[in-house]
């Protein structure tokens, strides 16, 4: 069965890029452009992995992740943040979210899907 991935990014181009790469790698991909739509999709589809931008138009990706962690339906889905600030200052807000990781921007198109897959294997 195909693995399901949910991508949440408000930048249409990034969203398309990540969606295409994951589809090429054999994922079923669901996409959302803001945190609340993303959380709705997460509850509905129960994806194997969530790929989340940190800066989103409604609430920050880290906040959305904390909300998903409180819901037992979505509590255990691994979340990978895609962030431009991989420096120490920007990491604090995602460090204390269980079962999460991050990938630095710009993403490497040649390894992206593989990196994402590792987060699933590691945590299941």
């Amino acid at each position: 069965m195909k693995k399901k991935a949910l991508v949440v990014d408000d930048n249409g181009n990034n969203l398309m890029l990540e969606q295409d790469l994951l589809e090429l790698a054999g994922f079923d991909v669901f996409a959302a452009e803001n945190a609340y739509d993303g959380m709705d999709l997460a509850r509905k589809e129960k994806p194997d992995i969530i790929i989340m931008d940190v800066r989103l138009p409604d609430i920050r990706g880290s906040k959305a992740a904390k909300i998903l962690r409180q819901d037992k339906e979505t509590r255990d889905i691994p979340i990978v943040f895609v962030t431009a600030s991989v420096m120490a200052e920007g990491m604090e807000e995602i460090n204390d979210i269980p079962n999460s990781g991050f990938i630095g921007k710009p993403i490497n198109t040649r390894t992206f899907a593989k990196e994402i897959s590792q987060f699933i294997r590691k945590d299941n």
Partner: protein
Amino acid sequence: MSHELRTPLTSINGFSEILYDEFYGPLNEKQKVYVNNILTSGQHLLLLINQILDMAKVEAGKMKLALSSLSMKRLITDISMLVADIAGKKKIHILLEIAEDLPNIEADELKVKEIIYNLLSNAIKFTPEGGKIGIRAKKVDSQIEVVVWDTGIGIASENMGKIFGGFFRVDTPFSRVTEGTGLGLPLSKKLVELHGGKFSVESDGLDKGTLIRFTLPFIPRMEGKDEEKSFSG
């Protein structure tokens, strides 16, 4: 600001990379060349933006060091191996002379790697085929002194003052101006100074090779908000 500059480039580089890799079908020869040009230009621009932003951050006193205990011996060996490929293509020999008693230091690993990578790749870039480059490291008082030298094109005395100005590049028979950003050297100097070290360049002139010497204290001397000289001058 960094976010605004990098986001469009993510699209340019990402989509052209996928096209180049022909995930969605083959390209003809001309298309492949064009897409590759977009990609290499995009990657170059990204490097330039990253370096300019880093430079601005240091200038504004906002660059923070993430300190950890570093084995300089391992770090230098790792990076020498990383550049060995490019050196090999030009039949350039790399000589490593690392003192046995080299102690670990407290420093920002990513930044020290960047400094050494910049200096070694410059040495390779400006050294003709069959030449030699080298890196030496030893303990001097409470600091580590690193020297990166080459037998390359050197620096003409009239250009000595310009190399730290940013964007200064020379066209040589061995390298194209478009290869570099001209910011690697000034940025490396800033990063060394951020650790409380010293950075200097020596060359006896054109075709006489170049020697770069820098120090890193065992424990960085943070200078707080010391007034730094502007690099735009």
